[in-house]
């Protein structure tokens, strides 16, 4: 059964008087436990698709279902708590809060749960351990390298044990070595922990780590050979 089911998706933007159609009837299934890379040129709609799956954006028409819930029909009030339970999101720019330590950044999603302080502490330590940053907990983002920042962001994405991890160009700002570390980590999360991962990337090396690679061009999806 597919964890993500997208059916007949239409998405259009209005720029001044011009209407831009990004998707015109796109359909997609992402199976549970898969590691899918979405590739394609800039402006092809990769990030838009990720935003639609995460419920950050609304389709013009069509349905987006994630783990059985019709995300496209949910109200903004219902979407926020749903997102906190089901989605782990990683950005290209890391987007850690600069005033918080690595530990506090990773703890953020857990503040939305009913977990006790002790339970939160355990989970944060585990997540930081998984990404290999248990010795950097008290460091602020400015004290971390780009790779370490992105691994912290991944720890933040997995700490609440979400159903689906979405990554938007996670290696876009990293050097080759750090990129490799992040990609190995993602592969581990998929293989060892069974996490379903969808990654948007321009990086062919990143795509190589994925089990499935899809190309998106002018709003049309094609499986890579």
């Amino acid at each position, binding site marked *: 059964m597919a964890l993500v089911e997208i059916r007949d998706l239409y998405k259009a933007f209005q720029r001044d008087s011009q209407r831009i159609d990004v998707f015109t009837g796109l359909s997609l299934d992402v199976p549970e436990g898969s590691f899918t890379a979405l590739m394609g040129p800039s402006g092809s709609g990769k990030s838009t698709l990720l935003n639609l799956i995460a419920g*950050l954006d609304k389709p013009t028409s069509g349905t987006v279902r994630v783990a059985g819930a019709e995300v496209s029909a949910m109200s903004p*009030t219902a979407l926020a708590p749903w997102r*906190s339970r089901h989605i782990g999101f990683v*950005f290209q*720019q890391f987007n850690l809060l600069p005033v918080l330590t690595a530990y*506090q950044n990773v703890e953020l999603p857990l503040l939305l749960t009913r977990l006790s302080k002790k339970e939160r502490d355990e989970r944060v330590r585990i997540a930081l351990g998984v990404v290999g940053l248990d010795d950097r907990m008290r460091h602020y983002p400015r004290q971390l390298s780009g790779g370490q920042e992105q691994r912290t962001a991944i720890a933040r994405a997995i700490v609440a044990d979400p159903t689906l991890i979405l990554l938007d160009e996670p290696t876009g700002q990293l050097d080759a070595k750090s990129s490799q570390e992040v990609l190995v980590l993602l592969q581990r999360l998929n293989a060892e922990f069974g996490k379903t991962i969808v990654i948007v990337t321009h990086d062919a090396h990143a795509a190589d780590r994925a089990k499935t690679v899809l190309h998106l061009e002018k709003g049309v999806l094609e499986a890579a050979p």
Partner: protein
Amino acid sequence: MKYFPLVLANLGRHKRRTFLTIASVALALFLFASLRTVVTTIGLAAQFGSARRLVVTNATGIVFPLPLSYANRLRAVPGIEAVSWANWFGGRYGDGKRFFANFAVDAESYLAMYPEIVLPPEQRAAWLQDKSSAIIGRRLLDVFGWRLGQNVTLQGTIFAGDWTFTILGVYTPSDAVLNDDMLLFHHALLDERIGRAGIAGWYVVEIDHPDHAAAIAKAIDDLFRNSSAPTKTGTEQAFNASFATMWGNVSLLMNTIGMAVVFAILLVTANAMMMSARERTGEVAVLKTIGFTDRRLFGLVMLEAGFITLTGAALGLGGAKLFYKGTNFNAAGFLPGFDVTGGTLAVGAAIALLLMIASGLFPALRAARLPVVEALRRVE
């Protein structure tokens, strides 16, 4: 409570800005409390006075004296049990920078008329015996470092010359509104030195019952209606209230300045909150992506505004209360009993709450309504 570290971290982002904003709020509320306390102290002073005491002044105005011979005629008015009189002396001590009130009073009758002036019996007896002596309020001891038995010389401003008095008594007011910043000396000495002019600044009479006040006041004024110095008689409270009425415009001014200061600080605080919110547009979008609801983000921004304004309020209002209490401030005797009241603290706290809402509401709504995709596009 678990969000408190997040709020604190955000406040610590620009420590200097946060400190200055809190300091602005604190200063504004300190000023507000100070100005309002001027108003409440004047109001309290207007209420001071015994309902059994009437004040008789010259009908033309308080600066015009009354003949000393009126004392016996007043004693003869039915319902009057005691008569005393006083004169504003207006003497200056030293360089005159530290003002204090000084009066020439008919000592024995004045002390009997004002039980609020508490004087040790031996000091009372000593003062009554020595015409060249004076008594002072406790505060003057502290202000000038005077001691009992010391000679103190005042320069007369209304009554020329140097006037030397021996301090033989230190009184303590039993009512905080009564000035503890005064020097009282014998009217007989004043009369003697100005050549037996036989004048009194005003009379104070004690009547048999407060209910008779209006009738007795009328009887007094009728008695002197056709004399060279007609009188105007009223209760002591009305007399004090007339001083307060003279302060009426000052009260309005104080309130207006107080509110203007608070409004100015509202703009400062709101601006600081807006700047802070604008800088964090991307972070708000990230928090929304993580799953923070609009309501929660609204609450977090309001919490920040609350921390700033309520900390400022606690410092400003608490500081005003402690400062005036600690320094026993009385504006050089003009505002005896100067104390920030519970009412003023409550109004200040209410202003702080309004300040919190007014400064936090817009940035909080902005954070709550932020379109997440739009905001992410700007930061990505």
